[in-house]
């Protein structure tokens, strides 16, 4: 009996299964969502979607979803402790939470943490948190902190971006280190990058060489897999840099002279030689034989080498200093640390530099640009270590040395709004919205020094050159006396975040959470961290709600399509199945009930800093107007509560009228400025789904097309910053390692290098194209695939190593770390893994009572300590290469 069809519609929306925000078309028939496909018209993913997007349907209809607000009645909190939930009304849940927020805001907004992992919601979350409420505490979990430390700080300085990526369309050679980009698994899936990589490999013969501790998908598909010891990629890069500069002597002198700080003169103490009047760094003009300002129009040539005597003092160009400095990093030295044969490192350096074709050019849209079709791509595997900052900088220095930064074929970013600082370095322009590590936040250090207190619970004040340290929030909570934190965290709001499972060893996070008197969680499922909540807000699934600007300018995947900007509307495909609200709706409600939705700032404008009132002053409506609704006609009335759709409508209509005079103005969208054809209301978006335009060459490759930028190969600010950090921490009596605040790249070994010798194995984790967050395990269809994979739910070990240790396939083992943390799993013997390495699938090992997810696989994060000693003191990244030992269970 055929069913009568009374409704058959396809609704466009944006995916939320990872950060990419691909454009979808969702099929609804007779009120049931039955299929999800890609939107062929969108340049974001060119009509294709990954496995996760398809399974959103089963996430929507999952019976494990939270259906109604809950309140905890068991005062005891702990891992495995039953919260004894009772169902309550939305009013009660919101009132209880808003009351706490109101108290805390009035007393000290720093006492509040927003524990979040929904990067697509940043546009609306961060103004609420940082500016309307006034707390600086944005704490991420696994996906935000294991991966980004050095990456983002390097992207800032080299491409004025949040993220850097290879310019695949023009590239011939990628040295890919610890990254799944282009193979379905980096910080999201990036369907587009997969297509581009596949096209480049097949149609243009792009070669990929991977450095990986195990035969991951990129390594399996690459032209060459070079096994490497985890956490030693920095040593590989230092030796490679030495080969380029001192052995092969291949470098792009033109690029170094014009677009880097290579020619800046450095004195014996390591500081730049600056002109007395304006403080600009000086360079040596060998033709005129005198020192001139770096941006002097009359400079005839820039010296890169040599020693110059000026007023009885000796100066060398920064490039000369770097060249001499890296001589100590020999191939033999690197080979010993990395286990990569010396000839291999040399050969890769040679291949890389030769393919870079220094001096070659290309014409794009009528503009002539340098072409350097060899680049390095890296991500979590390489930079998830204590030497994160220096690894990322060194990899970028190598690219800069061959002239491959910000040019076709090289390493590019999404930073079209960059503005040069007075010393020529890159600064992310006013439209950049996230915390930053450059220029170093010295004023924060000064404030700490003066006050004798740390302001940020995650010790962010002590990371002037980084910002990915939020896992230390748990350390700050547990050891506030040691770190001179003058307040305690009184409340936490969690959105889509599961730090107990996804950050590090669960006991540490659990102990910290126990100290927070009030926790509310906005979640789809009762995950391990939500079990610690006092109030649970059931969230509407992304197929049930409105969101806007989800492809926000952090541009996780950098360029959408072939160099397109895009912003998409997320609209509901189905009415909420249960008694749920979207995250944004909940934030608006909380702001309303806690009294910070309405009202203008009270601080008089003369007292504003950087064109902004102080954080915490002004209602959420006011801040939304400030950042997004530059058109006075469309602004929100300050004392009226709006529905999300109405706010989106006004934001959409104001897209072309953003006001760049509001600096720090983190959230505006200059790519649409002045282009009224892109200003549309929500009704337009419901039909058309997104706005998009192709970027111009100036926007894609600004380094050589806009004037005045120079990327760093010498980090003069580091030594000075380190001295300030040392001074500050010594004054406060806080033990702090500042040894990596040096001006040139050095080898900084990870804690694993000094582990006792009986801990003879390393352990690393990885993901697949169909797992992104911990909640992937709660999705039955994805879990089915994970279990079918021969390796993912097991611990992969090298055949020879296993034989030597007497292990067989499928043996159950305990893996124990130096700290005494342990996990249990089953072994999978393989030839495709470094003999010293164990590789295990991530996002698994849940203990919450969701069938299938529970007890499948093992939780790698359990082995990761959360401590200052295991954190990169510059970038804040956690150290993920742990030494372990295994024994039969």
């Amino acid at each position: 009996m055929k069913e009568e069809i009374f409704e058959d519609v396809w609704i466009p929306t944006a995916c939320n299964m990872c950060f990419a925000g691909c454009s979808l078309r969702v099929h609804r028939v007779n009120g049931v969502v039955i299929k999800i496909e890609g939107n062929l018209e969108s340049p974001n993913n060119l009509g294709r979607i990954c496995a996760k997007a398809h399974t959103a349907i089963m996430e929507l209809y999952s019976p494990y979803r939270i259906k109604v607000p809950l309140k905890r009645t068991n005062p005891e909190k702990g891992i495995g402790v039953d919260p004894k939930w009772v169902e309550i009304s939305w009013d009660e849940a919101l009132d209880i939470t808003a009351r706490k927020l109101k108290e805390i805001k009035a007393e000290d907004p720093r006492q509040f943490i927003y524990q979040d992992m929904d990067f697509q919601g940043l546009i609306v979350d961060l103004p609420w948190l940082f500016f309307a409420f006034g707390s600086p505490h944005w704490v991420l979990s696994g996906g935000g902190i294991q991966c980004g430390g050095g990456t983002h700080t390097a992207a800032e300085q080299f491409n004025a971006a949040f993220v850097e990526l290879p310019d695949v369309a023009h590239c011939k050679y990628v040295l890919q280190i610890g990254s799944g980009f282009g193979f379905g698994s980096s910080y999201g899936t990036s369907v587009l990058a997969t297509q581009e990589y596949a096209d480049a490999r097949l149609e243009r013969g792009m070669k990929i060489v991977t450095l990986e501790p195990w035969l991951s998908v990129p390594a399996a598909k690459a032209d060459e897999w070079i096994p490497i010891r985890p956490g030693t990629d920095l040593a590989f890069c230092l030796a490679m840099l030495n080969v380029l500069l001192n052995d092969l002597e291949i470098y792009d002198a033109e690029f170094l002279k014009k677009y880097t700080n290579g020619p800046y003169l450095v004195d014996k103490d390591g500081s730049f030689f600056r002109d007395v009047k304006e403080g600009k760094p000086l360079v040596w003009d060998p033709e005129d034989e005198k020192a001139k300002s770096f941006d002097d129009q009359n400079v005839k040539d820039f010296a890169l080498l040599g020693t110059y005597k000026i007023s009885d003092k000796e100066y060398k160009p920064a490039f000369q200093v770097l060249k001499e400095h890296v001589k100590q990093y020999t191939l033999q030295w690197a080979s010993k640390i990395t286990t990569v044969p010396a000839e291999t490192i040399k050969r890769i350096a040679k291949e890389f530099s030769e393919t870079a074709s220094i001096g070659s050019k290309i014409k794009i849209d009528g503009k002539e640009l340098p072409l350097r079709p060899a680049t390095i791509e890296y991500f979590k595997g390489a930079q998830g270590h204590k030497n994160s900052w220096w690894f990322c900088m060194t990899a970028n220095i190598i690219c800069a040395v061959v002239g491959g930064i910000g040019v076709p074929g090289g390493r590019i970013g999404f930073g079209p709004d960059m503005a040069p600082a007075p010393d020529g370095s890159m600064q992310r322009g006013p439209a950049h919205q996230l915390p930053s590590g450059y220029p170093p936040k010295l004023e924060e250090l000064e404030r700490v020094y003066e006050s004798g207190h740390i302001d940020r619970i995650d010790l962010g004040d002590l990371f002037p050159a980084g910002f990915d340290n939020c896992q230390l929030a748990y350390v700050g909570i547990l050891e506030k006396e040691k770190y001179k934190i003058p307040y305690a965290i009184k409340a936490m709001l969690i959105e889509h975040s599961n730090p107990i499972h996804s950050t590090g060893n669960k006991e540490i996070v659990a102990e910290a959470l126990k100290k927070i008197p009030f926790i509310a969680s906005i979640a789809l499922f009762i995950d391990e961290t939500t079990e610690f909540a006092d109030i649970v807000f059931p969230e509407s699934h992304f197929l049930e709600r409105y969101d806007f600007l989800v492809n926000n300018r952090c541009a996780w995947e950098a360029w959408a399509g072939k160099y397109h900007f895009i912003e998409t509307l997320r609209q509901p495909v189905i009415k909420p199945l249960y008694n749920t609200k979207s995250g944004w709706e909940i934030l608006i409600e909380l702001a309303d009930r806690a009294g910070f939705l309405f009202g203008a700032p009270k601080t008089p404008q003369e007292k504003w800093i950087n064109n902004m009132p102080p954080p915490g002053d002004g209602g959420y409506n006011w801040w939304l107007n400030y950042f997004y609704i530059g058109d006075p006609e469309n602004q929100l009335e300050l004392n009226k509560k709006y529905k999300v759709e109405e706010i989106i409508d006004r934001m959409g209509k104001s897209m072309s009228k953003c006001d760049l005079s509001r600096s720090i103005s983190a959230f505006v969208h200059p790519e649409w400025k002045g282009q009224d054809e892109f200003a549309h209301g929500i009704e337009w978006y419901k039909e058309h789904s997104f706005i998009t335009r192709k970027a111009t060459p100036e926007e894609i490759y600004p380094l050589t097309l806009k004037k005045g930028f120079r990327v760093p190969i010498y980090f003069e600010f580091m030594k000075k910053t380190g001295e300030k950090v040392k001074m500050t921490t010594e004054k406060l009596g806080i033990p702090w390692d500042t040894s990596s605040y040096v001006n040139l790249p050095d080898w900084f070994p990870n804690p694993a290098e000094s582990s006792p010798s009986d801990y003879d194995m390393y352990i690393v984790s990885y993901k697949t194209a169909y797992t992104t967050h911990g909640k992937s395990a709660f999705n039955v269809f994805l879990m089915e695939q994970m279990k079918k994979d021969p390796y993912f739910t097991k611990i992969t070990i090298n055949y020879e190593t296993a034989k030597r240790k007497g292990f067989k396939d499928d043996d159950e083992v305990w893996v124990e770390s130096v700290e005494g943390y342990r996990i249990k799993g089953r072994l999978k013997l393989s030839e495709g893994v470094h003999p010293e390495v164990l590789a295990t699938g991530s996002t698994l090992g849940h203990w919450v009572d969701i069938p299938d997810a529970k007890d499948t696989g093992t939780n790698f994060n359990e082995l990761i300590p959360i401590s200052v000693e295991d954190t990169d003191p510059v970038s804040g990244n956690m150290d993920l290469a742990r030494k372990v030992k295994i024994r039969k269970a």
Partner: protein
Amino acid sequence: MRYGMVIDLKRCINCRACSIACKMENVTPPGIFWSDVLTFESGKYPNVKKTFIPTLCMHCGDPICVKVCPTGASYKREDGVVLVDYDKCFGCGYCVVACPYQVRSLNEKSSQYFLSELTPYERRGYPLHKVGVAEKCNFCIEKVEKGEEPACVETCQAKARYFGDLDDPQSEVSKLIRNRHGFQFHREFGTDPSVYYLSA
């Protein structure tokens, strides 16, 4: 007109989108996969390779499953697509055992993904199947007849799958097979699959 598919093993990255897209399009019951991706490892450390091979019904030119089916439920159409008539099959499983590619499944018992309830999506989709019969990939023939491509082809992130008319020498699939020396698996059994592979 002979419908066929080409799968480029060099492009495939084991993302499983094809396997899941197929499952979502056809609402296959738990444990049944009409489309799958197999992983094979070869070599000795450090010269190791992994090969990912997506599989689906090969819609053979000379199908063994049609020959062995006692009821005539498995049949081959003019356009090369091999289908199963759920009204004729009685679930002996001979076709499942005889298929050299192991791409057929027997829908042995009624099952659902969540013990506690049947989701609306499953409630709508499971009646498309029948408990007790053999089932397999049907080249998304309903979509194809509307001018679309099979779900697995549409979704493939790496553009590794192509669909078209093998009888047309100018079709994309025919050209790929010619230019990249497309091969069939298990040629020795003489099944003449309509699915060709391009080597990794």
